[in-house]
């Protein structure tokens, strides 16, 4: 049977190609394959349901116990989009995402360049502090951070969101690990040529680091899009409300359920697009980031 032919090339895992001779193992392999399909269905079903249920109108949603809508009409999405002014929230979110991504690359990259390559006297203390920050959860200092932001008068602007992305220990570590593997000869050679430290960064280090810059950019963009606690605290009562803040505000408003469902759909579309384009980079970097350490 052709289903089992492919097991001849199986390189990893407990079940080896020679086990497939036994019909019991054949049976188990089929079960495992089915279990994988079920896992993916469970992973995708909730999002798919939200999308499909968004086509229902409010009566249908409240009264009929069916999973899927009677009719599919894309205009309902347009209606909610316009009525809730989602264009504005999208634009605000994009501003937040763009600024955060740039800050995440620039500030964390420069700090990591100092820690991984320049290594001035005393850099080890900073490395230690950054490592510890990795384990200090941001949420526990949220209150005092918010108080500080208000004190310096940055509330109501995008600045705190952008700059906060520039102080991320995880990104610093990703950059640092990558920079440490760059060929030292190149950097030493340009030092001898009299290049300044900053010039070496943007002429040599940065162009060689495109893969890790991409990874950090993807992570930072996703994180900035999904973040809601800091944006909620800083932007809540302004005209700079982001998509996530708007979603959170549904908690205390009486918008009808199908509009909320459609808003959820709007909020997950950009990450899905990003994921579809960069799935390889994303899944690989999760693994390498999780294991190396």
């Amino acid at each position, binding site marked *: 049977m052709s289903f089992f032919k*492919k097991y001849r090339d199986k390189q990893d895992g407990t079940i080896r190609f020679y086990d497939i001779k036994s019909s019991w193992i054949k049976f188990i392999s089929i079960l495992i394959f089915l279990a994988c399909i079920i896992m993916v269905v469970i992973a995708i079903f909730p999002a798919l349901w*939200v999308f499909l249920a968004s086509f229902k109108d409010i009566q249908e949603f409240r009264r009929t116990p069916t999973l899927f809508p009677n009719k599919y009409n894309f205009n309902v999405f347009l209606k909610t989009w316009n009525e809730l002014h989602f264009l504005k929230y999208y634009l605000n979110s994009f501003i937040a995402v763009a600024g955060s991504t740039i800050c995440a690359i620039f500030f964390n990259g420069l700090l990591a360049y100092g820690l991984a390559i320049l*290594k001035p006297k005393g850099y080890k203390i*900073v490395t230690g502090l950054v490592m510890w920050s990795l384990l200090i959860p941001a949420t526990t200092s949220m209150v005092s951070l918010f108080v500080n932001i208000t004190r310096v008068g940055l509330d109501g602007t995008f600045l705190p969101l952008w700059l906060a992305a520039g102080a991320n220990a995880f990104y610093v570590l990703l950059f640092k690990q990558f920079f440490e593997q760059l060929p030292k000869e190149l950097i030493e050679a340009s030092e001898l040529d009299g290049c300044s430290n900053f010039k070496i960064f943007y002429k040599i280090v940065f162009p060689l680091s495109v893969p890790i810059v991409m990874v950090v950019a993807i992570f930072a963009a996703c994180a900035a899009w999904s973040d*809601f606690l800091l944006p909620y605290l800083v932007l809540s009562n302004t005209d700079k409300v982001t998509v996530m803040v708007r979603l959170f505000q549904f908690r205390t408003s009486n918008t009808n*359920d199908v509009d909320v469902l459609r808003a959820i759909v709007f909020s997950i579309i950009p990450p899905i697009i990003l994921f579809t384009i960069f799935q390889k980079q994303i899944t690989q970097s999760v693994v390498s980031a999780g294991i190396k350490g």
Partner: protein
Amino acid sequence: MREKKSSSILHSISAWLIMLPGLILFAFFVWEPLLESIRLSLYTAKGIHLMDFVGLKNYIAVLQHPDFLPAIRNTFLYTFWSLIIGFLIPIIMATFITETVHMKSFFRVGVYFPNIMPGLATVMMWGYLFRPGKTGVFNILLSALGIQPFDWLASPAWTIPLIVLTMTWKSAGSTALIYMAGMGSINPELYEAATIDGATPWKRFLHISLPSIFGLGKTLLILQIISVFQILYEPLVMTNGGPNNASISVMQLVFRYAFEDYNYPMAASLSVIISIILVLLTAVYFKATKGKKPEYSTN
């Protein structure tokens, strides 16, 4: 010689200048707020302005608050359930995907999908799935099996396990990918040698595959406990801590004090208490990974 020395000082200065912007941001967004929390927790305040030094009074107020014990108890329940549900599921998922040869990369991408969903959208979405009454998604599925509708999040005994289930749905995929990489890097000769010695596949799984991800599991377990400890927006959005405080978490209590009661000193005190517990947990983590560089995951 002298020239070299002065150029190395210049090198150091310019290096520190390059790091300075990042350091300032770290100081403002990460390090200073930690100290500020401690300071804030020792004062009374009007809004964001500190008034009088009151010592540990805020801490006593936090500890005596009627919501404190439920929140602590729930936090342990969250941890307990996430050990039961959240720890094993990624290992099982990783095993299954490792042991199959068909559509592997599709499965990998598929199970990772929930990870890219924004956290807030995820919990709102699951709130709808758990809707009580006949029109909730899970109740529709149950009624197809002839089972009566269930209250889900509205029944106190079920709130926490269901919230943990939601968290697991979102994060299991990325953890599974990490385990898969661990399983994939096991030397195949081990399995072959075991087979020659007569080990059945099940025995090979128990004695080779599982032990080789043990270290990884230990690390991820502690990281998971640390992250569950800070659970905030799942109960905040899905149940608002209810029914009757059955799902309120300590971080949610911080949120309530700070941004609903505007009592920043009390919120800061509770933050400090949580930070101390987390530092202790982190120390355990370092001990468990035996002085290795800190490992981390992306969740």
